[in-house]
């Protein structure tokens, strides 16, 4: 059995309705669980970026990425292992203000975790932490003695260690192709 690991898939798409559905069924069909998903704009105008984390084998993730890229509205799709990207998640925690006021260690805890207090009022306090999943999870565990009323963690966002969005090169090549196609040259069959 091939080894499973966490992969981060980034997908660049046109801004069309229904792309999320097109992408998600490709995972569903192979019985792959999407671990996290983030949709946002990218550094390229009009280009949307999906960041999908998924635990699976190299062989399957490669097949998935090719199948995603095959969709007409998808510009490009890539997959990465954790060492190829810089990635973060953000987590929010809500705790009862009374509970922390009584605790002398609370401030130290927040500082140690490099977290931030976003809002504090008489009833509740909201804390934010960005980091990797382990980090936000550790804070959750440390906060649990105060009674966490609500907790949420975002999907992963990721940026590659190379300088430009890899999709820009593809778009440059496509511009050349477009000129060729439209200048009445051989019709692209």
């Amino acid at each position: 059995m091939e080894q499973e690991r966490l992969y981060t898939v980034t997908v660049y798409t046109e801004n069309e309705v229904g792309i999320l559905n097109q992408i998600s069924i490709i995972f569903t069909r192979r019985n792959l669980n999407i671990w996290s998903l983030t949709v946002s704009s990218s550094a390229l105008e009009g280009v949307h970026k999906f960041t999908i984390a998924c635990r699976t084998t190299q062989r399957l993730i490669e097949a998935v990425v090719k199948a995603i890229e095959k969709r007409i509205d998808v510009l490009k799709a890539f997959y990465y292992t954790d060492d190829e990207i810089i990635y973060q998640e953000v987590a929010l925690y809500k705790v009862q203000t009374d509970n922390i006021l009584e605790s002398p260690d609370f401030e130290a805890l927040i500082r140690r975790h490099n977290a931030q207090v976003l809002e504090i009022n008489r009833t509740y306090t909201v804390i934010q932490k960005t980091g990797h999943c382990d980090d936000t999870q550790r804070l959750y565990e440390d906060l649990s003695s105060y009674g966490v009323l609500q907790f949420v963690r975002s999907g992963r966002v990721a940026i590659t260690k190379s300088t430009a969005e890899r999709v820009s090169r593809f778009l440059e090549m496509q511009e050349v192709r477009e000129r060729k196609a439209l200048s009445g040259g051989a019709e692209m069959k």
Partner: protein
Amino acid sequence: MADNQQTAKAEMTGGEILLRSLVAEGVKTVFGYPGGAIMPVYDKIYDFKDQIRHILVRHEQGAVHAAQGFARVSGQTGVAIVTSGPGATNAITGIADAMLDSTPLVVISGQVGASLLGTDAFQETDVLGMTLPITKWSYQIRRAEDVAWAVARAFYIAHTGRPGPVVLDFAKNAQVGKATFNYKPVRFIRSYLPMPDLDDDKLRRAAALLNNAKRPLVVYGQGIILSRAEAELAAFIDKAGIPAASTLLGLSALPSDNPHYKGMLGMHGNIGPNIKTNECDVMIAVGMRFDDRVTGPVETYARQAKIIHIDIDKAEIGKIVPVEIGIHADARQALARLTELVNPARHDAWEAEFDKCNKDEIELVSKGETNPETGHITMGEVISTVAREAKSEAIVVTDVGQNQMMSARYSTFAKTRSVVTSGGLGTMGFGLPAAVGAKIACPKRQVCFFTGDGGLQMTEQELGTIMQEGAGVKIILLNNNWLGNVRQWQELFFGARYSFTRLVNPDFMKLAEAYGIAHRRVEKREDLGEAVRDMLKNVDEPYLLEVHVEEMDNVFPMIPPGKGVSEIMLNEKDWYKA
């Protein structure tokens, strides 16, 4: 001209824009079935009767299969028009079939008005949601202004790259709403790369592998036909002296009498191509996708071979079998370049090994099928008689089951685009409507449709279409009174427990008569030849020839499910030994 410019600026309904766009795309034939949500379009079809021929089918599944048959033999994009709700759901089997078999189609389905979407309105279904996994692209047209753009894009996507079906879900308000007609064909989509650049380095490496090969083998599929690479393939195998074998859908890309052509791959394929798959040293696969009915368990498939895979769909490369060199390219371009790069060569001894297998196969299996001396008529006998009488010139359409495998095995082909069969989906009932589409595309050619008694009854209502259109389809019903293919598996793998595979059939002669179709039933061997000649006499005339064939016949050779390509059954008890 002035008049044209006038109309170009005038406002017209989305329905009319659709028709004008179809005309602009060169569409001359559409297959369809009307209903509430598509009526504004039908009202316009009425105005375009002299430019577009509309074939009224009897069921929307038939509309799509007919469009598939049309597309497969003509090389053009097939068009089907259906209404919303049940019209669209009826079309789904055909769309799925076209997706798996890479057939270029544009399916236009009516939809309720945009303001009603999402309200469970009468005959509203989520067509885009339902067809998403089985379409190359789909789009909901909600405004008349978008019609021309969507149609242009649909045609471009359907027939370029790896072809496939496209669905346009056409909201009723957009059919009646008005816009100006401004049609521009699409030649480019930024997010779509249908024609990859040739990678010369990889082709050079592939040529080097082939130049050093002792036992090279070409396996090809429908990609050859779809990219119009038949001549390039023939030139390539001729120069490099390489034996070639076809998948089911690749059949007829090479004429049956090409000296390098060694037969069909797969579960019921020919012995040589299957056995030699596991003996070749270099395999070059072109425009085929290593379907599991071709490979059997992948762990046992061509492990000894270095594999070169050429395909226009990048996702196919490495999907099933690991490859030495994956070439993401159009088959025609790649083969043309590869032919320049390979050394002229011959592999006579290696090719002779195929010929030996072929001789064995004729002796051990085929002879008994095509020339039995006693017993009932066999399917192979009927099919080879038709091939002989039609001089290999006919378009062969098949249904699914034993009739399909026998047709693939015993038909012979002189021309490309002569096989229409449901490969990937294996859709029973595909054949009759597909034959109608093929005949309408190629009225001058014989269209011989081989079917079982089960499959014919799945879409037999299309006999009405044949009657109404006078489509000269030759229906050859190989009647064994069983769901033969399933019965065969029950016999071989389920202890001959014939669970619900016996058919009690209607009188097919009366059925043909009801539809005014010429017909004849053959039960005796001595009548067969004459009956076939009678059937073929008038190429324009629809004909139903029912032949009572041996009920308990099985299709052999057979690689049983779960076995590797070198484990071949010759009959119920014997296995092939070289």
